[in-house]
């Protein structure tokens, strides 16, 4: 099976400091790929470099569905099909919930080909407005469509970010610590949401600190440390890997899964 996302020797330097160093990995269509690692391992930097916000990779290749994206501008990378959420909650304060999501669906028709494709879709399919409604429904926020996003709860903001990402109709969804700061039941609900989306075929890459969450939801996991991959595989394989446990998981984890 061909990889949907392939990173080949991706590095991101800040001066002489390598936040991400010669990282190579593949993400296959339809899977949930988890990324974990201690603080400062370079996880968010990796997301930033891949999506071009606010910087791109220093060297290496990022290939999405056969197309190289490392030289593209951030908004072009979005049009190519990568959508992300942010670790720090971002929201458009002056917009309603619906408008927040519509920002995702409104700006996907940049090229002429897109426009004709959308015109065809519009004749046969939903408009940006309808797409936004669908996305809101998927994250279970439909009843709040007309509420102003300022002052929304953390759980709502996190779901809004996912919804607006979905509204861009991505090939690949990058979630950066989607459950950070949420309580137990909210975590469960968000994980269910991710599972549901994955079931509908959305390929997802997740960064997460909460190991139980990450391990239960991912098909495969990669552990990063100091910008390098120290381990990759299924949650079981990674959970028994000595290096991973040494660096990150802790010996208690082994006791947990045994």
């Amino acid at each position, binding site marked *: 099976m061909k990889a949907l996302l392939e990173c080949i020797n991706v590095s991101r330097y800040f001066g002489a400091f390598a936040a991400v160093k010669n990282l190579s990995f593949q993400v296959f269509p339809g899977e949930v790929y988890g990324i974990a690692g201690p603080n400062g391992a370079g996880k968010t930097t990796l997301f930033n470099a891949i999506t071009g916000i606010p910087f791109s990779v220093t060297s290496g290749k990022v290939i999405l569905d056969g197309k190289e994206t490392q030289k593209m501008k951030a*908004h072009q990378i*979005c*049009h190519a099909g990568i959508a992300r959420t*942010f670790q720090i909650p971002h*929201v458009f304060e*002056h*917009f309603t919930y619906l408008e927040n999501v519509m920002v995702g669906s*409104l*700006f996907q028709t*940049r090229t002429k080909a897109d426009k004709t494709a959308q015109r065809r879709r519009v004749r046969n399919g939903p408009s940006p407005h309808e797409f936004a409604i669908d996305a809101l429904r998927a994250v279970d926020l439909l009843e709040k469509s007309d509420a102003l996003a300022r002052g929304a709860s953390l759980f709502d903001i996190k779901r809004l970010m996912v919804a607006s990402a979905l509204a861009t109709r991505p090939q690949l969804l990058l979630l950066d610590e989607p459950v950070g700061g949420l309580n137990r039941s909210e975590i469960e609900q968000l994980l269910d949401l991710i599972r549901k989306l994955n079931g509908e075929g959305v390929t997802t890459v997740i960064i997460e600190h909460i190991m139980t969450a990450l391990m239960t939801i991912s098909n495969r996991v990669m552990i990063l440390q100091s910008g390098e991959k120290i381990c990759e595989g299924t949650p079981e394989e990674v959970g028994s890997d000595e290096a991973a446990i040494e660096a990150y998981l802790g010996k208690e984890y082994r006791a947990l899964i045994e």
Partner: protein
Amino acid sequence: MKMKRRKIVLPLLAVVVLALVPTMASSGYVLHLLVMCLIFAVVASNWGLQVGYSGIYNFGHYGLFAIGAYTAAVLSMSFGVSPWIGMVAGATAAALAGLVIGLPTLRLKVIYFALFTYSFQMLVYTFVMINIGGLTGGSEGLHRIPSLQIGAMRFNHYSKVSAYYLALAIFLLSTVVLYRVVHSRLGVAFKALRDSYDYAISRGISPYRYKLVAVVISAFFTGLIGAFYAYYIGALGPTILSWGILIIGNAMLVIGGFGTFYGPIVAAFVLTVMAESLSGLGAYRYIIIASMMIAALLMSPQELWRRACVVTAPLRTKWWEHFSNRKRSEAP
């Protein structure tokens, strides 16, 4: 529903009032003042599209106004072009200039765009002053610019009523177009970029493209009203490129409010009248307006009002006490 109604009714009322003004105005001076208000309102609201909505400081905005004015004037005076075509030419020249300054520099950080447009403004000024071939009139300026006319009806300084309606028409055109832009997908892009820049980009909004669109659209109308200005007054000089005018323009944006739609328009009316009434004071005029602008920058109007109340509170209590004591002592 009430809110929506208010949004349409109030502006509509304002338009009706503006349209009826010539019937009520007693002197030509009032009409002239209002024409100037309309002109500066167009300039301010278009500048507001760049500064308030797109977050870019275009130092050269009045340079675009001047390009519109001078292109029209020069074409009509030295090349005998009809003023109506001159208006279109002025607007187009300004829009092209906006494109030219925006294309290379809008990708950069805002400060670089500001500096670049500053040198552009200075370049326009220098170009006007150098007076190649006597076309631009240098520091003396251009005089006896031909007027806009249809048949016997003229639209200039001497036929103020017709000029007023033409100015009003351009003002309405510019305002309606701006309104449609702000409430379209473009407006969504502007607001999204302003609320959360990285987030907006991550959802596919190209900041460069939208900033460029904002600059070109506002350049067009600024050039158009600039050309009208030249034909209306009949004379043109480099004073429109002075820092004083720039600061008054800034004040319109600041006092009107960044990112509000009607704010700059209302502030333009207020400040044009104020500048006119203070014009006898020479240097004081700019000192007063600049101080107002700085005060408005530092504090929002509500905060200013609150501060004023707090500061004068002890005085007011004293006055009140004094007043009520006097009353008591006077009582039989």
